[in-house]
């Protein structure tokens, strides 16, 4: 039902509405991707937007310099992001949790500086403009597909024994290893999956925006938003990131429209409330209380 409604929405919706939904899809896909590594294995990635930015720039460069069609370029963005994840994961996923978090934060800063530095390819600080093209409705569908795909991947993983093994890394990595679980290999798989979605989504974002600059695709605030959405909805669950993204996105749009200056404040307050009073998030809380199946 929801799927059909969303599928026909662009036929009736206003331009603003379609753009807002497109952004919501993007957040569902981003939060859901972050959840695959951090929600399941407990390895908190503080630089996840790096994959989004890498995908955005890769796709933009392919479109501008290579004349690639945007859909293909976005997929290539996903490939670049997963390649990057393999490179980073091979070293950083051997670190213990907190050190991994810091390393990811560093990765994002390094990428932003690199993108600014290679002006010939990226336009540097001046940014990179894509040829004009109105593809909003097509990108709406592509983003929607990504949101659905990431959620489907989460569903398949969380309800599988592979997903349970990822959770054992979060629960107790030493015990997992002692049971014969190859924690490093599992983390690498989860990390690859978690990076590919943001890479593709970044590519779509680049086409949709038509203009990229380093600060617009590598902001720390975007990683924080992915984290808050997932934590609010329930980390390590299938629908937690979806619930979190919808709730916080709607809240942000409504509040932002009414009170421009307090929306940051409210967002901060939500973080504090979630961390203090329901660290498992809405679904996590319900799951523990009513023992919901993992399909939720």
């Amino acid at each position, binding site marked *: 039902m929801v799927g059909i409604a969303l599928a026909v929405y662009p036929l009736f919706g206003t331009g603003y509405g379609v753009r807002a939904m497109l952004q919501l899809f993007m957040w569902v896909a981003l939060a859901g991707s972050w959840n695959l590594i951090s929600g399941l294995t407990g390895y908190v990635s503080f630089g996840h937007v790096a994959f989004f930015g890498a995908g955005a720039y890769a796709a933009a460069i392919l479109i501008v310099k290579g004349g690639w069609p945007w859909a293909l370029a976005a997929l290539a963005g996903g490939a670049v992001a997963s390649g990057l994840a393999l490179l980073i994961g091979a070293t950083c996923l051997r670190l213990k949790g907190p050190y991994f978090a810091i390393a990811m934060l560093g990765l994002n800063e390094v990428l932003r500086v690199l993108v600014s530095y290679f002006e010939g390819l990226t336009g540097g600080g001046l940014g990179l403009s894509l040829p004009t093209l109105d593809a909003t409705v097509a990108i709406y569908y592509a983003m929607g597909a990504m949101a659905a795909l990431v959620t489907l991947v989460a569903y398949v993983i969380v309800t599988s*024994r592979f997903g349970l093994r990822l959770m054992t890394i979060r*629960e*107790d990595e030493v*015990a997992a*290893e002692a049971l014969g*679980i*190859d924690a490093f290999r599992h983390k690498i798989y989860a990390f690859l999956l978690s990076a590919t979605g943001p890479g593709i989504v970044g590519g779509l974002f680049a086409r949709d925006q038509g203009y990229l600059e380093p600060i617009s695709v590598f902001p720390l605030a975007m990683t924080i938003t992915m984290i808050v959405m997932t934590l609010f909805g329930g980390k390590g669950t299938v629908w937690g990131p979806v619930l979190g993204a919808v709730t916080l996105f709607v809240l942000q749009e409504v509040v932002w429209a009414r009170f421009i200056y307090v929306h940051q404040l409210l967002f901060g307050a939500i973080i504090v409330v979630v961390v203090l009073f329901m660290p498992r998030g809405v679904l996590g809380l319900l799951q*523990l209380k009513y023992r919901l199946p993992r399909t939720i």
Partner: protein
Amino acid sequence: MRDLHKSFGGVRAVAGVSLTLEPGRIYGLIGPNGSGKTTLFNCITGAERRDSGDVVLHGRRVAGLAPHRIAQLGVGRTFQVIRVFPELTALENLLVVTTGSHAAAEARARELLAFVRLDGLAHEYAGNLSYGQQKLVEFVRMLMRDPSLVLLDEPAAGVNRTLLNELLDAVRRLRDAGKTVLLVEHDMKVVMGLCEFVFVLDHGEKIAEGPPGVVQADERVIEAYFGR
């Protein structure tokens, strides 16, 4: 296990210990606090890298391998402090172990839970179980892979009498099934009643070995425990 060494900074936790374990027997590893028992366990399972020395399992050298490889080769262990996965159910705690198809794993997991009479709590989160029940979950979880060498770190600690007797029976059944059991235990009654052979560590060195009765009367052992 031959001539195993492990130091932390200037502290020699394990200094040249050699043990030989035969299948189908229960061995005890005792010694005062800080004598290197848990470190020795960690070196066998790969949780800690040994500085030098060898660990050989069925003629195969396992020292230096990653902990998950050693587990896959047939070494199972429980921990001194319980390490269940609290946010996974009792059943899921067992299901994570990679063996065969999902259906086969689930059948085995349910069988093992029934073995320790926890089948009624299969879908309870492990974190909500009592201390003793968590200990049983940890114990049968380790059996999922059907290990040939079982290392138990203080299985009796904090477990009530009834539960303890069940646990000890389970250990004897493992022995009867041809597995090698090595356990660290402070409760001398348990050690004397269960183990056929005992190794005594003090300051990282093996100071005595033999049947429990003999070791108990050994002067060096008495000295290590009670001082001169």
